[in-house]
């Protein structure tokens, strides 16, 4: 499904990822952990060819297609989806309007409004959010937790096969975290998607029960294991465990 090969990335000449490799197969859940500045969020953004970052070498293959230099809209159409750490708001552009255009671009056909609205309402019920979210501006006037749920509303409508969650736990209370995790599990069961999660949240890791856990240090994967690696790392921390707290890379 996703192969990141020897990826090196910089921003303003500062190297953020260096010789980064990861393989994620269909239906797998992977967790990325690591100290602040290790490159986890950079990877998430680079997978979507965020224009703020420069890819110096390596490539990203998604379902046998090289997406390294592809426009983000085309990457999305191939089935990739990202929930950023702090989703922005776009006042005045409603969720429904944005999703309708996104679907029409995907299919080349007009969206049937009645069926579309019904589907949106059903997802609102699943996520325990008010139905008026559908016609509200994107993330407009929403709390951090509501924004994350709103992003999941988009996910259910766009039906991606690969989901990137960059600290989706931030801004979520305990109950909201359970709703979000259960919702993701329900989505995964229905669509057999793969999920890449950046998190240090024990409860989320417990609820999502990842197949693989990767520790990122100095812009590359320094250790890979199963669920127990996450649990041990959370117990021991990056200082007492096998890692120190320095996640950044020197340019030397």
């Amino acid at each position, binding site marked *: 499904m996703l192969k990141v090969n020897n990826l090196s990335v910089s921003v303003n000449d500062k190297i953020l990822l260096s010789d980064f490799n990861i393989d994620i197969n269909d239906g797998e859940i992977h967790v990325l952990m690591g100290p602040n500045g290790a490159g986890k969020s950079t990877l998430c953004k680079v997978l979507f060819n965020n*224009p703020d970052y420069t890819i110096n070498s390596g490539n990203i293959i998604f379902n046998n297609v090289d997406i390294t230099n592809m426009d983000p809209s085309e990457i999305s159409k191939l089935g990739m989806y990202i929930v950023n750490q702090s989703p922005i708001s776009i006042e005045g552009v409603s969720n429904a309007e944005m999703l309708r255009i996104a679907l029409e671009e995907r299919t080349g056909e007009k969206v049937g409004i009645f069926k579309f609205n019904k589907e949106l309402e059903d997802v609102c019920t699943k996520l325990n959010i008010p139905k008026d979210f559908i016609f509200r501006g994107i993330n407009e006037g929403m709390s951090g937790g509501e924004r994350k749920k709103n992003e999941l509303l988009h996910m259910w409508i766009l039906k991606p096969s690969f989901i990137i969650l960059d600290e989706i736990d931030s801004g979520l209370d305990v109950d909201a975290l359970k709703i979000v995790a259960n919702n993701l599990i329900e989505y995964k069961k229905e669509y057999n998607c793969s999920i890449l999660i950046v998190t240090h949240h024990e409860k989320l890791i417990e609820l999502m029960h990842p197949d693989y856990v990767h520790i990122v240090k100095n812009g590359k994967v320094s250790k890979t294991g199963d669920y127990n690696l996450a649990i041990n790392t959370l117990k021991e921390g990056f200082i007492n465990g096998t890692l120190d707290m320095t996640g950044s890379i020197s340019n030397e």
Partner: protein
Amino acid sequence: MNNIKKKSDYIILDKNNINSLQDNNCYIFDKALLTDNICINIPDGYNLEFYLINYEGDKLDITFNQNNNSFVIFSFSIINNMKSNYKIFNNVNGSNNKTIIKGRIYNNVDADTTCLVSGDIKKDTVNNDYTEDVRGLNLYSNNLVIKPDLIVSTNEVVANHMVTIGNFEENKITYLKEKGIGEENVKKLLLSNFLKGIFPHELTDDDND
């Protein structure tokens, strides 16, 4: 103001009714009216809203005259494709008036725009509340000049004016692309949002047609 729900509740402002305005109503400019300079005299005590939606002409010269106890909202959006000159004047001649002027100007690829938005709050007036808020979108780095010109000749007034000129925010473009919307549609969506943001929902929502 009125609790208007449908487009049909709005009145088209044309040469037949410009001098016989009805209180508590919302008017949409008939664009044919705007080929000449026009003057709108607001009767004392009237609450009126005026909308000019996606005007594409090269000239605009509108003057509002407010005397006492009136409330005027004027919202306009302009899509300019050529060399154009727009002038909007508001004379506040008396007291206890409220005025809100909101504008959105899109400077298209071959545009060269000058827009003067001028308010004149006269001497010896009291308790007026005056706001101008005009924003320009200049994607092609052409000439776009918006001049906010506010003359205040009294101390007992609340008056403010604001003009911004800019481009689309990159993070919004990236966000919408990540949802699978191509650059062309992203810009259309953001432009539409920019232009319609100052109008009541029912005037701009095609689904309600």
